[in-house]
């Protein structure tokens, strides 16, 4: 069962994020999965995943290594077949039928080492139905735009890792796909190239492409995505907007007072803890106003007061559990964080 999407007015409020259609019922998802299952060697590695990626959105699949992200993406693309469940890609139940409208960047980057950069990009376009001559023209332009014009005729094996990754990414978008699927696209990139990739993803979304990417770095999902799926242990733990994920937790209140005690203490939630001179507790359902009134009336002497909205990391811990969060941190170890 898919959670309902938030109204468009409540999303798209963060910089660089595009608005999301209001409901899958109105806007058929560009990519969807219902109860996807995959077994390998008698072990269930994907266990009933449900997804709905709205068209034109940036959608992140978040989870630690081994969570089943790549297997899920491969099933959605038709590279492998699920053992159970259903999938749709741009309305096609056989995803390869929509292959011409899709771009895919696998986690394990693959290019022919002897192939010149321009030819490699044109070849990837040709695989998706773009005529070779047109592919070469576009490849030359894209390489120029991304500062690699000088490398157009150089074999891939002579390029640096970052340059080769850029070439592969350009090959993924050469045919201007409607859907772009990126498996761990930021993996192994330095901060500069991560920034360029983020800009490229936003540019693709701005031209109307649907972006689905997997990551084990929360910050990437938080910065780019309107909607996310949190996967751990092959199961879907959450599917919805980033805001919805964060809303799973109540905002945290941090309160510093001059008075150590008084009648106002009765207004604090029972679970409030006092540490390092500051009270910490979840924002009560009734809001902050009744508490403020009690603090003022009780002469608590408010010195500091902050209401902090939980980040996606806190939401991840709450949704997927501490163990999954720890795995996520292990997965992200060694990555350059944005």
């Amino acid at each position: 069962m898919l959670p309902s999407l938030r109204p468009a007015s409540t999303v798209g409020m963060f910089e660089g994020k595009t608005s999301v259609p209001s409901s899958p019922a109105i806007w058929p998802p560009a990519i969807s999965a219902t109860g996807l299952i995959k077994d390998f060697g008698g072990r269930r590695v994907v266990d009933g995943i449900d997804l709905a990626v709205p068209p034109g959105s940036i959608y992140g699949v978040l989870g630690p290594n081994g969570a089943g992200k790549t297997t899920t993406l491969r099933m959605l693309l038709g590279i492998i077949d699920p053992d159970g469940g259903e999938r749709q890609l741009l309305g096609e139940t056989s995803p390869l039928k929509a292959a011409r409208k899709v771009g895919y960047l696998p986690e394990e980057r693959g290019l022919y080492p002897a192939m010149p950069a321009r030819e490699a990009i044109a070849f990837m376009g040709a695989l998706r139905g773009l005529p070779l001559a047109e592919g070469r023209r576009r490849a030359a332009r894209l390489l120029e735009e991304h500062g690699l014009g000088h490398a157009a005729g150089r074999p891939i094996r002579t390029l640096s890792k970052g340059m080769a990754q850029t070439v592969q990414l350009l090959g993924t978008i050469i045919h201007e796909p409607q859907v772009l699927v990126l498996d761990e696209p930021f993996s192994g990139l330095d901060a500069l190239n991560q920034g360029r990739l983020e800009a490229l993803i936003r540019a693709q979304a701005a031209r109307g492409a649907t972006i689905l990417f997997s990551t084990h770095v929360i910050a990437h999902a938080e910065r780019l995505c309107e909607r996310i799926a949190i996967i751990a242990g092959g199961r879907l733990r959450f599917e919805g907007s980033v805001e919805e994920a964060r809303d799973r937790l109540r905002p945290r209140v941090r309160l510093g007072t001059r008075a150590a005690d008084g009648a106002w203490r009765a207004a604090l939630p029972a679970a409030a803890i006092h540490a390092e001179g500051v009270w910490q507790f979840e924002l009560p359902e009734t809001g902050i106003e009744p508490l403020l009134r009690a603090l003022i009336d009780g002469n608590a002497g408010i010195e500091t007061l902050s209401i902090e909205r939980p980040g996606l990391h806190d939401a991840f811990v709450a949704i997927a559990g501490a163990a999954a969060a720890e795995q996520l941190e292990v997965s992200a170890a060694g990555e350059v964080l944005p």
Partner: protein
Amino acid sequence: MKELVRAAAVIARRDFIATVWSKTFLFFLIGPLFPIVFAFVFTAMGTRSDEAASRPVVAVLAPAHVAADLQAAEAMLRARLGERALPELSYQRTDRPSDEQAARLLADKAHPVSAVLSVGGVPSLSAPPLQLRALRGELSLLLDVAARDHALGEAAPAATDIRLVETASSVGFENTGRHAVARGGQLVLVMLTMILAGMLLSNLIEEKSNKVIEVLAAAVPVDAIFLGKLVAMLGMSMVGIAVWGGGATAALLIAGPPIATLPVPAVGWPAYALLGIAYFTASYLLLGALFLGIGAQASTVREVQTMSMPVTMGQLVVFAFASSVVADPDGRVAMAATIFPWSSPFAMLARAAQDGAIWPHLLAIVWQALWIALIIRLAAKAFRRSVLKSGRSGRRGWFRKASPTR
């Protein structure tokens, strides 16, 4: 179907260009020349040294008049049977040949001889056992001719010349020639198929190590990847065959026997060449699809070698199976070899050399094409299951463990 062909063409084009325009392809083209050149060099060297070593020297101890008779007989025999029909004879005139003289000559290191023929009273031949057996007949013939001519004296008949009448051919000669063409054609076909189809394996392994396979599989049907690779390698093989065939034809025209003296296959050389190409294509695709299926199961060169060995051995068995057609084209074994898809191309090529009917070949080509389609589909399924870590539990690659997921 249209999309399948389009995608296969994109992959075939890439693979073909990448292979044919590489420097290593030049080595591939000239590779077969090395064994041929070595064979020529060693044969030439061997022939020269054999000429010296293989003609044993026989010392002949005989009185002068007997030696003269023997020399006359020797000259006549060499003229009729060829220079190499007799061992080299070294005459030593002596009135009383003895065993002691013979023993001395056999032990003489300065003038080594293999045997000593003493002709005084009863002729005797002194030599080690092997030489005795080898020389006995030839030297006996020499003595017989010398004795007959001596006995008949002036009455000995002059040598008779046979009138030679040249004919275009004979059934016996044609049959022998067609047998040779059939066997030669089969041998060439099996060698080419095994060498060239095996190259597909290394191509696929390279692809897997490049991680390009996932990019391909996400964009086009796996069947198209298979078909593209097979067609590309087939094209590359055809380039190789054209170069080697052209080279062999040129060598034949320049240094070989006259074309008219070569045996002609029953269907004629042009049809035989066309059928050869068709059967190479069929056998290449049948074996290549098998190799691709195997390559999909393996992830390292070592695994590929291990897994392809039974197929290579099997191919030799298939070759032996198909060679039965040469001896008995209509026998049961030959018919079975003709029907069994992997031996069918070899069997039919042998048939083309011996039987002029064309329709069985059209039938065989259709039959083989059906099998090619089936094998490619099955191999593609195996590929999907193993290379792309797909398929249901327990039905995956033989060597592959449960795939880690990400």
